[in-house]
């Protein structure tokens, strides 16, 4: 009855996805602490050597952000914590770069970052919060402005919006049209995607549109681009799929700590093996090995 028109698929490969990144961009990384970071994309960014990025971590990111600092990609960090808890209380490269003033830190706490994301997602110049009054955060981060509200004249902190070029998230599954669902918690990803100009999501599995429609209430957002990446959050966990690879996190932390103490050998070999040499994400997984990957199952 009508000319055959077709809906577009948004699935692309990781190289094409990474062509959207440019030096100096502001990127937001989803997940939370040690789970669901889009590591295949983050390693891809590190490998390609992008520069002067502003990196918004997942409120409290893990060593995903530390890796980008260690690879020299970062000019400015928005994060309330950089570390992997028991596996590495602090990101070594983050710590050193902060102390050497090689990076700017947009000083904040998790809720202040979430407020910045809300302001951005809602198209508002700022979002008001109470936390931070009476602390040194406004001194360390002059973008946070104390003001008095127009209704009750109460003191509040205005958290400004921040333009975000790309959000990188890692989800359980998506269909070919970008509809994205999680087995577990999506943490701040939904808000991040609404705040960013573009969302690139790596997924454990691509599923049929019919599977997504089976429970449309589970759909968290519609990503602009989908990249298939099984074990895409490794060495972090992905709810419902695998847990943290603690050995790998320890290997990273050890290498990074020796690097900041002056011995570059183990960091160079880590970087060569896991970042520079693998041609793509699946090649990286080959380095990790099937036996290790399948040892990480939940429970």
């Amino acid at each position: 009855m009508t000319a055959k028109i077709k809906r577009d698929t948004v699935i692309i490969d990781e190289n094409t996805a990474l062509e959207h990144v440019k030096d100096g961009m502001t990127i937001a990384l989803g997940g939370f602490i040690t789970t669901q970071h889009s590591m295949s994309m983050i390693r891809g960014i590190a490998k390609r050597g992008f520069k002067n990025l502003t990196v918004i971590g997942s409120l409290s990111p893990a060593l995903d952000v530390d890796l980008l600092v260690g690879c020299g990609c970062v000019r400015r960090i928005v994060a309330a914590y950089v570390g992997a808890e028991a596996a590495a209380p602090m990101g070594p490269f983050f710590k050193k770069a902060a102390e050497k003033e090689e990076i700017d830190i947009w000083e904040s706490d998790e809720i202040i970052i979430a407020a910045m994301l809300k302001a951005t997602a809602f198209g508002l110049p700022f979002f008001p919060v109470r936390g931070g009054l009476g602390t040194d955060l406004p001194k360390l981060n002059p973008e946070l402005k104390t003001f008095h509200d127009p209704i009750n004249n109460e003191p509040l902190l205005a958290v400004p919006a921040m333009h975000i070029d790309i959000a990188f998230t890692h989800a359980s599954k998506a269909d070919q049209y970008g509809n994205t669902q999680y087995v577990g918690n999506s943490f701040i990803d939904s808000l991040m995607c609404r705040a960013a100009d573009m969302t690139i999501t790596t997924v454990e599995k691509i599923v049929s549109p019919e599977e997504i429609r089976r429970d449309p209430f589970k759909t968290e957002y519609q990503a602009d681009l989908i990249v298939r990446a099984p074990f895409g959050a490794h060495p972090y966990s992905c709810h419902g799929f695998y847990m943290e690879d603690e050995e790998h996190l320890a290997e990273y932390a050890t290498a990074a700590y020796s690097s900041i103490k002056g011995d570059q050998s183990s960091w160079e070999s880590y970087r060569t093996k896991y970042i520079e040499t693998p041609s793509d994400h699946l090649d990286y997984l080959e380095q990790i090995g099937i036996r290790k990957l399948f040892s990480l199952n939940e429970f």
Partner: protein
Amino acid sequence: MADYSVKELMACWLSRDLVDKESSAVGANFPIPRAAVLLAHFIHGPNMKITMGSFSVNLEGVNQVMTSKYFTDFRPVRWAESAANFSFDLFTFHKLDVFFISGIQIDAYGNTNLIGIPGNGKKFKFRGPGSIGTTTLAALARRYYIVTEHHTPRLFVEKCDYISALGFGDGAPDLRQRLCLPGKGPKYCVTPLCIFDFSPKTHRMRICSLHPGITLDQVMENTAFEPEIPDTIPETSPPKKMELDILRQRVDPEGLLR
């Protein structure tokens, strides 16, 4: 020789100050408060609103709880009644009853620092891990506890170099009211040596009790500020057998607090 560790003492003592039906949140990698909350839940708080990571759980009928090394551990989902909605719940902490905070500096007025230490004309001679959620939660949660596994003069300072979580600021009696902060601030500071509370008049830390075997001199030597000292200082009430049994069998079977 005590048949309990000081961490177990701290957890048991804290648990008694938690009240049934209250809501509490425990930050990442913070085993003593986590144990205190679960212990209170098992002993006298069946209606406490407990979070394990990003899940709201109720553990009635659960014999043994695994410990989580990571905040985002997915396994407590087995007991979850709901999952945190980051869009709402991160902004509703004025409804939270109880929170726990630590720091790389803790000062005489209960302010804490997780940001770092300046020096040599730089922002950071030493960069700390970051404020996590403490800045907002210290402002909003109805009360909070400062809990630390260490008690040293470098940690307990007269004034934090940077305040990341506001306790009572400079001790001005109405600071929190002037700032319209809904939270009442820190209630106790629990250390491996003693319990501090805060003088109602000055908001300055005051020795509340000394742990069994600890002397006042030991506390003073390890505290770089002068706390208020009452005329009589009781001993911190040690764990009861019932508390230790539940703690070791149900809350901390791996013995992280031993």
